[in-house]
């Protein structure tokens, strides 16, 4: 007989509040209902009240783990409106910060996956070797997670030359320890028995659900924004894309572990390029003209998509944000049924879902709403829009 197992909103496997209802027959999951909305904070609604610089600061607070992917994508969107060029040194710093964040996000997921299948040693080890990455971020940007590095037309603060030797030997230490961890994880027979063939997502399903990032790469789809649309320094740095075939939890693990090695090599190339090039880090942008811009970036979980429509004032008329987990979470419907209960839980975690990313919100054009402090600005904007519409 079928009974429903409620999962969430508070459950140790879910860092954030999320509600799944697993229809279970005995120990086997038959169907899965999802209900989102617990983490909804109205991001896009707020980002219309603020100008572009404040929006970038706000957009960083969408998700703690991929906290520099959103600002990079948002800045790409704004730069896409007028095709603004950024100085070469800023490109390398952006890629350096992005790749370091990918290392710390994948290590975080590796630890949590170990924790969910009861393998606490892997959890502690991978989080122990994640601390140096956070220290490097603290050296560069002053904060462990919300770096506040991105500006329109460049980067907030510069990588000071005397910090570079410290960064390099921290990277060396991480790479050497990562070899040990990846050996421990890849050829451990019990782990293989536990994760092989669990919650497989076929290539056809992944394409149909438009999955992005490591989830799609684990199912064989070759999709990587760094390769497809190489902005910043990804055109000048050589790395290769990791694709696996059968898309089960074990392959997702392997794809992420190998990507950590790729990111370490990219960071090294960026750092020794930074030593050679010097120059400005930010060419300041005065005016954002009217138009639309699409910004994309390869976050640790997939393609982050920002769409900004500006009307010439210093505030975005429309700011649409779509996080990668928004497309990856529905794939549970394809990968969860037919799996035993304990496997279903690790499949839910295997997509590395970031629920707070998924539910940022939608925007309202707020010109009819009077804001006391921004009264004048909104009035001018309404006049401009009205006569623009009366015009055509």
């Amino acid at each position, binding site marked *: 007989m079928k009974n429903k197992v409620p999962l969430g909103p508070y459950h140790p*496997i879910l860092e954030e509040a999320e509600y799944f209802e697993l229809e279970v027959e005995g*120990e086997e999951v038959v169907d899965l209902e999802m209900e989102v909305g617990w983490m909804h904070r109205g991001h896009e609604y707020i980002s219309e009240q603020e100008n572009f610089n404040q929006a970038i600061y706000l957009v960083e607070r969408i998700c703690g783990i991929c906290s520099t992917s959103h600002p990079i994508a948002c800045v790409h969107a704004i730069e896409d409106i007028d095709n603004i060029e950024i100085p070469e040194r800023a490109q390398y710093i952006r890629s350096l910060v992005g790749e370091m964040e990918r290392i710390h996000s994948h290590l975080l997921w590796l630890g949590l996956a170990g924790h*969910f*299948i009861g393998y606490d040693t892997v959890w502690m080890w991978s989080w*122990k070797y994640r601390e140096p990455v956070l220290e490097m971020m603290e050296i560069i940007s002053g904060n462990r997670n919300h770096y506040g590095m991105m500006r329109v037309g460049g980067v907030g603060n510069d990588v000071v030359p005397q910090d570079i030797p410290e960064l390099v030997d921290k990277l060396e230490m991480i790479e050497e320890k990562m070899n040990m961890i990846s050996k421990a994880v890849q050829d451990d027979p019990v782990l293989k028995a*536990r994760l092989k063939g669990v919650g497989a997502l076929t290539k056809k399903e992944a394409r149909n659900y438009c999955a992005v990032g490591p989830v799609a790469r684990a199912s064989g789809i070759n999709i990587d924004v760094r390769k497809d649309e190489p902005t910043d320094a990804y055109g000048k740095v050589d790395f290769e894309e990791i694709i696996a075939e059968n898309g089960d939890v074990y392959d997702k693990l392997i794809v992420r572990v190998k990507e950590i090695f790729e990111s370490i090599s990219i960071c090294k190339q960026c750092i020794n390029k930074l030593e050679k090039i010097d120059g400005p880090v930010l060419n300041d942008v005065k005016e954002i003209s009217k138009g639309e811009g699409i910004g994309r970036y390869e976050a640790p979980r997939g393609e982050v998509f920002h769409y900004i429509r500006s009307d010439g004032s210093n505030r975005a008329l429309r700011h649409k944000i779509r996080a990668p987990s928004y497309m990856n979470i529905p794939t549970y419907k394809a990968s969860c049924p037919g799996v035993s*209960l304990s496997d279903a839980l690790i499949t839910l975690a295997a997509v590395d879902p970031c629920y707070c990313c998924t539910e940022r919100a939608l925007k309202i054009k707020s010109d009819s709403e009077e804001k006391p402090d921004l009264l004048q600005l909104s009035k001018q904007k309404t006049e401009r829009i009205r006569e623009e519409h009366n015009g055509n």
Partner: protein
Amino acid sequence: MNVDLFFYLLVFPGFLFTSILGLIVGWIDRKVSARFQYRVGPPFFQNFNDIFKLLGKQTVLIKNSLKSPFIIAPLVSFGSLVILSLFIGLPLFFDKSFGGDILVILYIMVVFSIMVFLGGGASGNVYSSIGAGREIKLFLADELTFFLVCLIPIVSSGYNLELTSIISAQNAGAVVGSIHGIIGFLAGIICIQAKMTMQPFDIPEAETEIIEGPLMEYSGSLLAFWKLNHYMMYVIYPFFLIALYLGGFDFQGLGIIWSLLKYLLIVVIMIIIKNTNPRLQINKALSFFWKILFPITFIGLILAILGV
């Protein structure tokens, strides 16, 4: 007779000794597994603090759960463990035991698993019922192998069912010395790992999957009893294995260190197994016990019969 029976039951091999030793060994387990993970680990009196704190907290009884079995389960399992510690402690320390006490010990061990099932089922929560179901499945998995593990020393020490006679039969040479002894000892350690629901087999209390299974709805003093039971099992099962395979304790001079080493050997092996592999799924655990461990122990039994 009954005055020192109370002393045996309540103080020496019984409740006080087992729980204090269990809490200390529980601390060793937490400390060593923390060192495994490069962590500092809790201070010495941490487990005592946990138990006293839990005793002081409010016990929440759930509206839609069956009140009486919910309360009885931890107390009866606590009682069964105290009796177990008596039956295993007496032959080891005072060389007193009654005929056929191995069978009684095996039956009382079953009581604990059934009480966990009763507690989980009575708390009216989806996760606890799943945890209770898993507890019985795991119990089915390791019970047969554990039975063979107990048969090997009986056979090798000349078919007598008394613990004292098994211990005395081993004065010549411990059961572990022979091939079938080694097989039985290793299978015994893995069975203990499963009976105590330690790491690779902690499927019923999978902390991250089904929120500590049957223990989820317990709080306050009832939870203190459950935690105390878990720590007392750290003492009872290794002692039982020592009695069966390692020839019990002898307390003349050098013997004390030797018996302490035996005990620490078993505890350290269990901690290492706990920290080096992830949690198995319930069907894989069942197939592991039935397809791999059971044939090996059966071969060990045959070797024991042949007297190799």
